[in-house]
């Protein structure tokens, strides 16, 4: 790519990079920094890439690594205390007194068809952003960054049972949100 193409393309790419970083780091300032670093890193090797698709894949790969580094840097920063009790309460709302579904989860029809729809991803992002901070953070580390639970526990200095509670909460919360905001009426 020529340098003019490249500059324009990076401008185009920047908002998506920022959104991706914010979703995982939950801080605009830190997201800006990380994206900045990723873009600088990307510029160094840009000449090697012929196509935009190949190049943007590479920029995102750099960004993902920067995000992982940032999450690791934070490990001394403990997860904000969120009493285990509160976690249980949020999950409890979904179940009745005997811990059976308060409301049977609705069918989602063919959810995979949604993956092709741009609007689905906006709802998906909104639902991830709607999760409480700690479940969201652990969920991101597990599912976006693909870290194993052992590693997450170690990085965040939490027990594995706490980690599982947070993941359980994040997944049920996300399931509930998508059910209400996207799949309601779709099935």
């Amino acid at each position: 790519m020529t340098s003019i193409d490249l500059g324009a393309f990076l401008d185009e790419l920047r908002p998506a990079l920022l959104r991706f970083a914010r979703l995982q780091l939950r801080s605009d300032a830190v997201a800006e920094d990380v994206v900045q670093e990723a873009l600088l890193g990307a510029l160094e090797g840009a000449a090697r890439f012929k196509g935009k698709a190949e190049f943007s894949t590479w920029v995102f790969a750099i960004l993902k690594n920067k995000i992982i580094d940032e999450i690791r840097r934070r490990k001394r920063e403990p997860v904000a205390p969120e009493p285990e009790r509160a976690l249980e309460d949020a999950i409890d709302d979904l179940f009745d007194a005997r811990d059976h579904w308060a409301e049977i989860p609705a069918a989602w029809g063919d959810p995979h068809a949604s993956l092709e729809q741009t609007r689905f991803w906006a709802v998906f992002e909104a639902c991830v952003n709607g999760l409480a901070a700690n479940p969201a953070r652990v969920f991101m580390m597990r599912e976006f960054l693909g870290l194993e639970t052992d590693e997450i526990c170690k990085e965040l200095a939490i027990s594995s049972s706490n980690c599982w509670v947070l993941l359980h909460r994040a997944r049920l919360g996300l399931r509930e949100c998508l059910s209400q905001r996207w799949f309601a009426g779709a099935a």
Partner: protein
Amino acid sequence: MLNCKQATQMMSQGLDRRLGWRERFTLRLHLVICEGCRRTREQLEFLRAATRRYRDIF
């Protein structure tokens, strides 16, 4: 017998570690009788697939 809350805990953990045979067995028994949890299992698997896709579409 598992209740639905325990079943969802186990299904969630099943995405993070290999469940023991006892756990798999009790979960299976529960799923036979519980449509809500069967749906939830599929939906949790879908969430994982969707999140990976989200990561990859960038």
